């Protein structure tokens, strides 16, 4: 009995899960996919649940931003500060271009929720950049 207790007390903690990094080309391909389709990178890595939650969050925020008459920015060199808004917007990937093609992100400045909608559209793109970086870390074995 004493031996059993000793074994319980002095047993070594379980070894941390070994993290195997993917090669850089595969990692970049996965991250590109994750940028174009939110959540896809995590799904490709095998983190289904996390990927689906990320996809839901980003796409829901994007849809709400459009529904609130937010503005999607194009690349305009006449207005240099709009470049930052454009960079934030393209973080959403393919949904951005689909919405642009459908003329959904025109933005109605007089609409009460215009500012909120525009902010939603920026933030969902920026969140997707963070999500892609998270997928990069996982693929490189820096994170479980």
């Amino acid at each position, binding site marked *: 009995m004493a031996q059993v207790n000793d074994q319980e007390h002095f047993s070594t903690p379980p070894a941390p899960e070994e993290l195997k990094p993917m090669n850089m080309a595969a990692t970049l391909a996965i991250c590109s996919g994750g940028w174009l389709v939110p959540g896809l990178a995590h799904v490709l890595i095998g983190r289904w649940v996390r990927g689906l*939650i990320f996809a839901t*969050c980003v796409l829901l925020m994007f849809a709400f931003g459009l529904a*609130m008459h937010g503005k999607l920015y194009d690349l305009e060199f006449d207005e240099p500060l709009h470049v930052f808004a454009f960079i934030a917007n393209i973080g959403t990937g393919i949904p951005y271009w689909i919405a642009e093609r459908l003329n959904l992100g025109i933005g109605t400045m007089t609409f*009460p*929720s215009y500012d*909120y909608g525009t902010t939603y559209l920026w933030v*969902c793109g920026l*969140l997707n950049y963070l999500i892609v970086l998270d997928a990069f870390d996982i693929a490189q074995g820096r994170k479980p």
Partner: protein
Amino acid sequence: MILSHFIALLLFALIVSTVFALITKNEPREQFRYGVFVFLSFLAVAFAVGWIMYPVPL
């Protein structure tokens, strides 16, 4: 779609805190606790800033 400022804030905080929690923490329990913390922090800061701005004539 017209949402009230508060509902828009709630929705924003909910989505952002979910993503932050999943990105920064690994264990489900930690993720939940951190997500709740970030969500409540968003609300607390919004209320605090709102009350601070209340007497300011803008």
